[in-house]
């Protein structure tokens, strides 16, 4: 029994890799022949250059996220927390290549839902393929969108740090990045479900999600919440003070996230154009407004402007502006930043003392911020600023419905995937390991070590 368990635990990962390998070799044989078919359209150098940079920036966000989260946990869990972001760079890149991109951007097998196998194993993406009108190489679109998938998966980890078993986490995001993320990406950007207008659904307009408010932030935050519920709270939650072990890392992470987000939002204009410039400016102003609002609330309530609060405000402002960054004016962006901060601030205040151990407030920042931001996009979207419509009650409702569907789907799919995961790996680390810390327990390493009392083990032992 124990042996079997151990085999599964130890064996699952290599099996997955072996499977990858097989798939890829097959695909590479097939793929080779088909690659040249795509019709070449002209590549726009300037736009391509900007998306190249944006891709790098979004990848940088994952590093930033690791530090943002890593600074907030206790010392003994610093590496484990950072690893949850870093491992996503490995796993999700690969799932995205295998099937994620295809699900998100292939022509749908199932109407409205997607599940296309068109680009399975990157089949059909050649050097000459472009995204069409945009003049961006398709392979760059693959990488840029892949970076979104990675960061989304990594975001989830904030809710379950300091207690989730690392192998379970790896297994979980492997599946979730496909069924949780890629599917919803199709709904939002691939021409799927959320194009209410196009598909004449519910008499609504197309839901607007410029850079990923629903598919990235709400989606990840809801998944985070569900996982947090399934795992239960940390042993020390509510009893002991669990303080951020290194706030400078959190500030560094927030700073990197902000810089990366210029690529996230700015790159979502898919070109080096006025919309990108607008998105950039809004991505500066909304978090700035959120900082001012948060600092004011902090100062008003406790007389002190906190650093962790400021870092949180940056994230909230960034999340809030994400769905509407390229379709509303800069003053609206400021207003969005100011307004969104208020509910997030009080929710996070409340959450800490509640029984809900969404440890690093993924829901408070990304979920609530994403929801409010998405709804406000329905209010502030403006044709003057490049939107397809102007803000209206109808658009607000379209946003609301999209948000609700996103929440609903994310709840269900996360629950299902986590339940499957549970079959193979206990989701949670043994309770005693929480005292030791997951760095030593899961990774056999310490984040900060002075080597005292460490005796070298000769090889062979």
């Amino acid at each position, binding site marked *: 029994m124990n042996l079997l368990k151990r085999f599964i635990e130890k064996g699952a990962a290599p099996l997955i890799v072996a499977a990858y390998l097989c798939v890829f070799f097959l695909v590479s044989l097939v793929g080779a022949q088909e690659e040249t078919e795509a019709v070449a359209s002209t590549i726009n150098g300037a736009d391509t250059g900007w998306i190249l940079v944006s891709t790098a920036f979004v990848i940088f966000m994952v590093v930033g996220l690791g530090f943002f989260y890593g600074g907030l946990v206790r010392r003994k869990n610093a590496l484990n927390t950072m690893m949850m972001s870093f491992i996503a760079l490995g796993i999700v890149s690969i799932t995205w290549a295998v099937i994620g991109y295809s699900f998100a951007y292939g022509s749908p097998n199932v109407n409205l839902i997607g599940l296309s196998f068109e680009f399975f194993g990157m089949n059909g993406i050649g050097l000459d393929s472009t995204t069409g009108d945009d003049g961006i190489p398709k392979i760059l679109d693959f990488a840029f969108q892949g970076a979104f998938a990675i960061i989304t998966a990594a975001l989830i980890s904030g809710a379950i740090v300091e207690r989730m078993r690392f192998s379970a986490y790896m297994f979980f995001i492997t599946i979730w990045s496909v069924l949780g993320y890629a599917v919803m990406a199709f709904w939002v950007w691939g021409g799927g479900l959320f194009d209410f207008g196009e598909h004449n659904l519910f008499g609504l307009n197309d839901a607007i999600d410029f850079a990923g408010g629903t598919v990235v932030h709400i989606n990840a935050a809801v998944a985070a919440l569900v996982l947090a519920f399934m795992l239960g709270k940390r042993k020390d939650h509510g009893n002991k003070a669990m303080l951020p072990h290194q706030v400078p890392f959190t500030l560094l992470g927030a700073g990197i996230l902000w810089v990366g987000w210029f690529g996230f939002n700015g790159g979502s204009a898919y070109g080096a154009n006025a919309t990108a410039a607008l998105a950039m400016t809004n991505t500066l102003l909304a978090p700035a407004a959120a900082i001012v609002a948060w600092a004011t609330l902090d100062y008003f309530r406790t007389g002190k402007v906190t650093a962790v609060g400021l870092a949180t405000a940056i994230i909230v402002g960034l999340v809030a502006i994400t769905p509407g960054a390229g379709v509303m004016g800069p003053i609206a962006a400021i207003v969005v930043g100011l307004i969104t901060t208020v509910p997030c601030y009080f929710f996070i205040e409340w959450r800490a003392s509640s029984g809900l151990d969404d440890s690093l407030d993924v829901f408070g920042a990304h979920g609530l911020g994403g929801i409010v931001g998405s709804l406000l996009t329905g209010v502030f979207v403006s044709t003057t600023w490049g939107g397809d419509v102007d803000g209206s009650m109808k658009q607000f409702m379209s946003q609301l419905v999209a948000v609700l569907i996103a929440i609903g789907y994310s709840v269900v799919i996360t629950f299902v995937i986590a339940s499957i995961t549970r079959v193979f790996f206990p989701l949670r680390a043994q309770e005693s390991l929480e005292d030791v810390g997951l760095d030593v327990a899961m990774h*056999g390493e310490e984040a900060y070590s002075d080597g*005292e009392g460490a005796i*070298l083990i000769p090889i062979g032992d």
Partner: protein
Amino acid sequence: MKLVTAFIRKEKLIDVISALFEKNIHGLTVSNVKGHGGEGEKVETYRGTRVKKELSEKLKLEIGVSDEFVDLAVKTVMSSARTGNVGDGKIFVIPVEKVYRIRTGEEDNQAVTPLTPKN
């Protein structure tokens, strides 16, 4: 007077402090230490380097008390720091010849604890 010196688990600190406060013992000092006792070793790996960590992180508590408080302090620490698993630690009671309060220059019993133990 005595210096009650205890080596305890990190995660038990708050419990111990709270217990001491309840007994009206407020003067104490804590430091980070690493100890070796009966606990098992941990193995860590950094690239090819494998190491055995002989020491685990502990806390050292120093509580200067007047003689009538010694037993109370010891008992309080013992009960609040106990988990029953290997690694709970030890208490050493060390004699002290003189105590001074730096602020006032007060000596001995005046310098350490309230006059009557609160049970």
